């Protein structure tokens, strides 16, 4: 089949330089090869021996390409949301002060006297104790 006929059948109008035409003509005039005579026989044997599972591949990769990152995103996002939700239940709205028993501020007169001076009376001031020691002779 000549080059000109091929183009006519193709229904295309093509403007080529002379060199391009020559190249195209050389290629189109190459002798054609055909399949061997036992092609059909070998093909039937090949189909009979082939496993349909090898050729019926489900394209998982496009699905995995989106499913995996989405699952990861949902997992992390869900964990973050759940963590925020649960941690919010244990934290009061207003921080409460610890329950510390109230104590009055001790004055100089209310200083607890040592055990050696525990004679049932109220604790005396340091000055009174000092003066009392001077007037009262010690008993041995």
């Amino acid at each position, binding site marked *: 089949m000549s080059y000109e006929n091929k183009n006519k059948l193709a229904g*295309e109008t093509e403007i080529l330089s002379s060199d391009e035409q020559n190249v195209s003509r050389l290629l189109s005039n190459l002798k*054609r*090869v055909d399949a061997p005579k036992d092609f*059909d026989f070998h*093909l039937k044997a090949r189909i009979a021996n082939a496993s349909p599972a090898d050729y019926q591949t489900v394209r998982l990769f496009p699905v995995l390409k989106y499913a995996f990152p989405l699952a990861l995103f949902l997992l992390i996002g869900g964990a973050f949301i759940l963590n925020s939700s649960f941690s919010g239940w244990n934290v009061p709205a207003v921080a409460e002060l610890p329950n510390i028993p109230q104590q009055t501020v001790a004055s100089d007169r209310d200083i607890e006297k040592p055990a050696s001076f525990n004679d049932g009376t109220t604790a005396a001031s340091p000055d009174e104790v000092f003066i009392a020691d001077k007037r009262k002779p010690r008993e041995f």
Partner: protein
Amino acid sequence: MALDKIESRNTEACSTVVPKEIQSDHALIEATKNGDEAAFASIVGKYRGPLTNYLYRFLNDYEEAVDLTQETFVRVYFAIERYHTEYAFSTYIYRIATNLAISEIRKRKRRTILSLTGLFQTYSEDTTEFQPPDERSLPDQDLIEDERDRVIAKAIAALPTKYRVPIVLRDIEGKTYDEIAEILELGLGTTKSRISRARGLLKEKLKHYF
């Protein structure tokens, strides 16, 4: 440089009627889906020659071309249920064959341990890749004896894959630009550009035969 305009008449492709060839292919496909083995045998008989020739011109290896042609039909057979008639079966089967051939080219590259020519060349898209010539004899002695065909085949085999595929489909298989663009899933402009580029590369090697 004189420009020669190649004119052609309008064909039935311009009409909205589905070509008989495509109708026939779709009918055979439907029959195959219904379990008609003879219908599939008809498909094989119709496309085994063109596919073998296409893959041979692409790979420059007859045995490999036959093997990949069979593999193409096996894949078509097992995926027949998934084939949709929205596009031509010819486009479908050529696309499968092209993908198999490109995979084979990539396997060959991985098998190449060292490319001596690559050491002295800078990598670029225009660099023609080194392909060891297939010195084995062809089944048809006429082909062997034609030195010009051998030189042309060698020049085609030396083209980068992205230029080799469209030029073989265009100038050897006689596919239209639209068909080639559909097979290769490229734009029409890109397809035309690559074919033009391929012719430019081949011109340098084949100018002795002009």
